[in-house]
């Protein structure tokens, strides 16, 4: 045993001498600091220091973790139906998932951005993108619910989204796929160069209500827009986007979009775009997209079809859009806290270019262009370049900042995080990730004032990090303490779906304002029953509206007769509780739709179409009190044409008869 240890030690020494940085510790324990448990332990009953909002990727949800514990606090359904609370199943929330293509139950959610005031997360809203059927969502951080979803016309693959300007003036949405636009979209695929275009949308956000509106779109060449970040401080008026596939390939992009040594960072002067809009230079295009809004007073969503969008063409409107060459197939596009440096991470580049905002402005003023790309000026690479981080690792993807002059870039191919100095672009430290890291997150790490205490790496490959669970595994995330000179791995935690970008901020900026329940007095749902006196059952043709109340631990009514086969029965359940954390659930046998979960003071509707005559049990699905198991009732369903009167009651041996209206 001792021999083995000595050999082991020798092996480590040899590895350290010759192997770095290519060889990394391969087992779970090797890279962990001794007091890691102490630094991530949050005692029972104590709160975490940060909220960590993590995109769900292909599950279409957002998950919320506490840091530094890595405890999962909540899943927020955004672009996918959610069996936990009936989102997308209840009548009230179905409109949230409506699109111009109809009801879409599941989308792919990639990036998150917290709303900002003066360049810092303000804890009001969280924005999320849907990649597949292009949309942007706004989540309310008082209720932790999706409040709004806006579809994007003239778009395919809404990837470079939903990043914000410093005061949440705009959220952007850029197209990963260029697509044909206008009246005739039935065009040959090999007419790509002629017919396909990309767009970037600027979505204005109302500063008090948060409501989103497409202010304008930029019509752009048919290339792929990947990621983006807004300028800040001196570069406030600008937005930067990474672009790839400047080859304009429409097949085997793996090869055909990797031909050119440099693609672009696109710089957009959005103040200039605003000016053109004011001057009436925008062109109104006829399109069709939907705008879904959730009303917290009515506890209901509405879906509205919009028909117009304003488009600006940078080929005609000068001084608004510029390209900066960037090696090679850039992915991440990140702006440092000072707003001076723009970091482009070329997936296929062996270096990380850092551009200077000041130099870019000077290059534009001096007309240092190497030419144009489809009518848009291309700035000379060297003229805008601050410098290059040499030999950072393989496959640079994304960069976050600690507010102390350092940048941290994820290296997908070499599975590591590389810390480098913004001052001299020298690599300072590198830490292995397990495995194949994608996005990084530092609390406030893309804002003006990052909280540079922790860094989280969201990895694409999990393999052996946790107990095996068959072929499908949870994704692995790693937490690093970055308060010192060296990054220290202190925690592994599994995540849900496939996290892409994430955001984190100090918990107390959000937790203090968290909604505890909805005031029953303020419930403006058209089918609310505010008190058991208002509970009733009403027939309108073949529609039966059941106004039903829930409180620990009974329903009113809990005996219903006179429903007929084929009726559309709507159970409008109002939870009369006015206390924190007392939801009630509702389920009725044979409901093909779902169950629902109703928060205190809320009204929520389950649609049920009984197919056969008989007696159907209904009950509360959320353990609400010692007598939860007693919280149940019956619905009698009679054949079509039956003369059984519509009656309803609770606690009546002989039910009161109330004739159907």
């Amino acid at each position, binding site marked *: 045993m001792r021999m083995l240890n000595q050999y082991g030690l020798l092996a480590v020494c040899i590895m350290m001498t010759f192997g770095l940085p290519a060889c990394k510790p391969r087992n779970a324990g090797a890279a962990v600091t001794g007091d890691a448990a102490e630094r991530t332990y949050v005692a029972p009953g104590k709160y975490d220091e940060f909220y960590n909002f993590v995109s769900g990727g292909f599950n279409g949800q957002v998950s919320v973790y506490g840091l530094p514990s890595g405890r999962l606090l909540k899943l927020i359904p955004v672009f996918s139906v959610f069996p936990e609370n009936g989102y997308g199943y209840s009548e009230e929330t179905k409109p949230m998932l409506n699109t111009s293509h109809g009801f879409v139950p599941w989308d792919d959610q990639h990036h998150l951005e917290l709303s900002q005031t003066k360049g810092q997360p303000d804890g009001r809203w969280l924005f999320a993108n849907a990649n597949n059927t292009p949309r942007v969502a706004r989540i309310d951080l008082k209720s932790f619910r999706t409040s709004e979803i806006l579809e994007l016309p003239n778009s395919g693959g809404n990837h470079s989204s939903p990043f914000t300007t410093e005061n949440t003036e705009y959220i952007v949405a850029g197209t990963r796929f260029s697509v044909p636009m206008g009246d005739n979209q039935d065009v040959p695929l090999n007419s790509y160069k002629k017919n396909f275009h990309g767009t970037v949308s600027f979505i204005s956000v109302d500063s008090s209500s948060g409501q989103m509106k497409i202010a304008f779109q930029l019509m752009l060449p048919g290339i792929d827009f990947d990621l983006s970040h807004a300028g800040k401080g001196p570069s406030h008026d600008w937005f930067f986007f990474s672009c790839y596939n400047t080859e304009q390939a429409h097949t085997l992009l793996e090869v055909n979009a990797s031909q050119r040594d440099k693609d672009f960072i696109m710089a957009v002067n959005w103040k200039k775009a605003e000016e053109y809009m004011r001057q009436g230079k925008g062109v109104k295009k006829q399109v069709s997209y939907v705008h879904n809004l959730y009303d917290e007073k009515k506890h209901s969503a509405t879906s509205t079809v919009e028909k117009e969008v304003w488009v600006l063409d940078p080929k005609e409107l000068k001084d608004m859009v510029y390209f900066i060459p960037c090696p090679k197939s850039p992915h991440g596009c990140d702006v440092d806290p000072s707003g001076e440096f723009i970091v482009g991470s070329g997936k296929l580049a062996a270096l990380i270019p850092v551009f200077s905002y000041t130099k870019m402005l000077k290059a534009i003023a001096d007309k240092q262009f190497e030419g144009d790309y489809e009518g848009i000026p291309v700035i000379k690479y060297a003229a805008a370049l601050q410098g290059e981080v040499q030999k950072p690792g393989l496959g640079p993807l994304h960069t976050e900042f600690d507010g102390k002059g350092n940048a941290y870039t994820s290296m997908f191919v070499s599975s590591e995080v590389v810390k480098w100095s913004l001052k001299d672009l020298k690599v300072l430290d590198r830490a292995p990730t397990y495995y194949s890291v994608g996005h990084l997150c530092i609390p406030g790490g893309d804002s003006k004032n990052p909280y540079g205490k922790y860094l989280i790496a969201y990895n694409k490959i999990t393999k052996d990090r946790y107990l095996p669970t068959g072929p499908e595994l949870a994704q692995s995330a790693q937490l690093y303490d970055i308060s010192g000179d060296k990054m220290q791995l202190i925690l592994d935690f599994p995540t849900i779906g496939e996290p892409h970008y994430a955001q984190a901020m100090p918990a107390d900026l959000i937790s203090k304002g968290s909604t505890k329940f909805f005031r029953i007095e303020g419930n403006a749902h058209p089918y609310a029953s505010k008190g058991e006196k208002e509970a009733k059952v009403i027939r309108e043709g073949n529609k039966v509206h059941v106004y039903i*109340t829930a409180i620990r631990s009974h329903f009113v009514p809990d005996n219903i007769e006179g429903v007929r086969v084929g009726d559309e029965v709507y159970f409008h359940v109002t939870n009369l509780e006015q206390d924190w954390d007392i939801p009630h659930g509702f389920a009725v046998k044979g409901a093909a739709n779902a169950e629902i979960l109703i928060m205190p003071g809320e009204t929520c509707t389950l649609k049920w179409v009984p197919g056969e005559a008989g007696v159907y049990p209904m009950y509360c699905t959320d353990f609400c009190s010692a007598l939860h198991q007693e919280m149940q009732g019956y619905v009698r369903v009679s054949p079509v044409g039956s003369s059984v009167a519509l009656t309803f009651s609770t606690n009546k041996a002989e039910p009161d008869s109330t004739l159907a209206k």
Partner: protein
Amino acid sequence: MKKLLVLITLSGLIYACSDSGSEKKDSSTGEKESKNAAAASSYDSTKGAGKFTHVDLASSLDHKMADGGKAVYDVKCSSCHKLTGEKLVGPGWKGVTERRKPEWIMNFVTNTEEMLNKDPKAQAMLEICMVKMPNQNLTDTDARNVLEFMRQNDGVK
């Protein structure tokens, strides 16, 4: 020496464990006990725990307040409380203003969790009803109005 250390440690442990118990007789715990006793005796179980220590009641009914109380009752209380003496989920309200002081009632409806945790009468009712009364988040005005409605229900004119 080692044994002595163990003994000292053990006695320390016993001391620590018995801190909240009642067997230790030395002066420091004695003092603590008397403080506890004082705290216990200072709890006025007729008025209950909460912010209401003194409620003035007029001899006649304030009808406006009673109407306000009825509105709150309909939305937040009637699910569980009948106006007769019959128990539904919770006890019926008939005679409640004779059984309980106004302060107790207002404390119970606004400070429900603490009352259920420490008040002997509230705990006795919980043993009968087996459902913890929900805190329905009544404002102070709501609570006073509900009290007036209870008085009306008990025959105050």
